[in-house]
């Protein structure tokens, strides 16, 4: 089996696993079953391992190698992976297991978006196996992986914040409409959801700040020279979620308004990311 075929097979496998995990989490949300939840978590873990294998394959095939090769595998796919890892990490420390139903569709959408890119699985040509656009040699430094990692996991933290905020909005809607059985009983209390969303917003903002600072240090005077998609994504996130945090602290935003702000911000980001995945290519597309 050549690398291109293996890549296509792994894409199909990972997509199916993400979809299965999503279905499992939705079933848990609607019907409540610990066994199904455990199964969904295991399937998500397998999906991430399969995706890691796929990314390793790309890195080994890419003439860029290392972080550049990984990033050339398309931003949205890497972000999907980071979201999955962040969710599994978060559920070890918080009772956020039910949020799987909100997190997995985001990861699935980003992953499929990366596969729909020109020349990837669905098209003949280079696509995800392409070498990508090389990073200029004078940008190479130890800060480059920190910059990329901080940005990717910052976006993943915002994805978790968005998932939590979406759960908040559903829970609040159920409470207002006084439908307080079933799903309402299974979802966490409003206070906990608001608190988790705030924490994820704060964490994401911190990571993106690190990403912006290291980005400026890596690119030097070129940082503000041209607004590429990846820079736009980073700056958009940083400004938007910074504003949400600001409104939370200064204007006392909490609950519904903060949740709406978080969801709107992340959906906007998602549109940019998926559009970028389908239309663009490489790290500085």
């Amino acid at each position: 089996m050549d690398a291109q075929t293996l890549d296509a097979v792994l894409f199909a496998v990972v997509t199916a696993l993400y979809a299965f995990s999503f279905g499992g989490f939705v079933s848990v949300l609607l019907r409540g079953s610990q066994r199904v939840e455990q199964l969904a978590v295991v399937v998500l873990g397998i999906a991430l391992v399969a995706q890691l294998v796929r990314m390793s394959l790309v890195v080994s095939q890419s003439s860029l190698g290392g972080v550049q090769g990984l990033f050339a595998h398309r931003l949205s796919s890497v972000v999907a992976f980071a979201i999955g890892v962040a969710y599994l990490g978060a559920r070890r420390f918080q009772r956020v297991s039910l949020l799987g139903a909100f997190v997995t569709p985001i990861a699935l959408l980003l992953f499929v978006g990366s596969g729909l890119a020109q020349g990837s699985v669905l098209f003949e040509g280079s696509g995800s196996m392409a070498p990508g656009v090389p990073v200029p040699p004078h940008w190479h430094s130890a800060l480059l992986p920190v910059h990329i990692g901080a940005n990717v996991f910052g976006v993943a933290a915002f994805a978790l914040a968005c998932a939590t905020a979406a759960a908040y909005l559903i829970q609040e809607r159920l409470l207002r409409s006084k439908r307080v059985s079933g799903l309402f009983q299974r979802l966490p209390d409003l206070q906990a959801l608001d608190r988790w969303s705030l924490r994820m917003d704060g964490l994401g903002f911190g990571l993106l700040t690190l990403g912006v600072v290291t980005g400026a240090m890596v690119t030097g005077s070129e940082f503000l020279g041209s607004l590429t998609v990846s820079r736009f994504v980073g700056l958009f996130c940083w400004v938007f979620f910074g504003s949400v945090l600001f409104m939370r602290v200064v204007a006392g935003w909490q609950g519904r308004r903060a949740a709406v702000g978080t969801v709107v911000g992340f959906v906007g980001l998602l549109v940019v990311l998926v559009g970028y995945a389908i239309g663009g290519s490489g790290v500085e597309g």
Partner: protein
Amino acid sequence: MTPQTPTGPRAHPIIVGLSHQTAPIEVREQVSGGVEANGDLLRHLMERPVIREVAVLSTCNRVEVYATSPHPDEASETVSEFLQSRAPATQIAPHLYRHRDAHATKHLFRVASSLDSLVVGEAQILGQLKQAFQVAADSGTARGFLHRCFERSLFVAKRVRTETGLAQGSVSVSSIAVELARKVFGDLNERTVLLLGAGEMAELTAQNLKKDGAHIHMVGRHAQRSEAAAQRVGVDSVPPEELDSALLTADVVISSTSAREPVLTESRMREVVKRRKHRPLFLIDIAVPRDIEPAVGDLNNTYLFDMDDLQRIAQENMEGRREEAQRAECIVEEEARLFEQWRESLDAQPTILALREQVRSSVDTELGKTLPRLSSLSTDERKALEHMAQSIVNRVLHGPVTQLKGSCGDPDLIHTTRRLFGINDVAADVESSGENK
């Protein structure tokens, strides 16, 4: 079916008691007042030779004596007389129910699963049952079969709670209010609850919130009356003129004044919400006519439930529990059947033990005769021969033992086995050891 074995009488589980389903409160309070489940009472019951084990459950809704006895009818009569003696002023016989064998275990499983409770699905009964059997275990009056029954009832109750929604959703207005408050704030510890006016339902709800660690303040329209009510309930009193500032710090407001016009209007609350910086506020209006304008419920991070809402939720939860009760009954039925099969299989235990003993004894005798004549055998060869003999015994007995275990104590099969193998007598301790397995 009452299993009769050739080994003599064995213990049967029995239950004698009365509950809210068979006796009015006047009778129940007479009996429960005279039956306090403690070690002395249990030992007193154990003095009756007909009773082998005993435990007593005494709550406001039921008094039940659980016992095992080789003579269940006689034991039921003895327990009935005992209960009557504890409530001499009332004729309790018409209100008593008596269960034995499979009916007794099934009844115990239903009680533990809260299917026989006044409020189906309530959790309190399981704690009371645990306590009753703990007292019996500590007093040494429930160590064998009865203890096994109790352990199984706990398992069944857990299964019912896990596999059905029988215990989900409160069915009392005050519990629903507390449950909803928890769904808004999570932990209610250190939360502030404001009582507007005093009423039985409001006080009950406030007391429930207080149990979770909430601070309660009371505001009335009349300062003196409000202060007296606050003292009675054991909460802090706030002067009526400080209502707005009290609303700023409150997390939960329970309103039950007798005012003819709304006390908390939309315009007033809009200002309050703004000054609170939109912190969540949970409002419960149990006054009729209502104290809080319905439009208040549309304000940001403000949640309003009135009496109709709470009663509708209680009704829905009750209906949900009724549906789940059907599933719970199936689980209880299944578990009771399995337990009865196990119980009946105990009747075959003495025969199985005797059969094994008899065959093993024959083999040992034959080995004892044969091995001395085979002096040329090494130690290892002798051990191999003994091992082979033991394996043959196990293989030969495997079929009969499996049949006996699966026969649910079929007396015909037990008789036939005993006749075939010439088993005549089994010591009583063999029987009791079988029961305790």
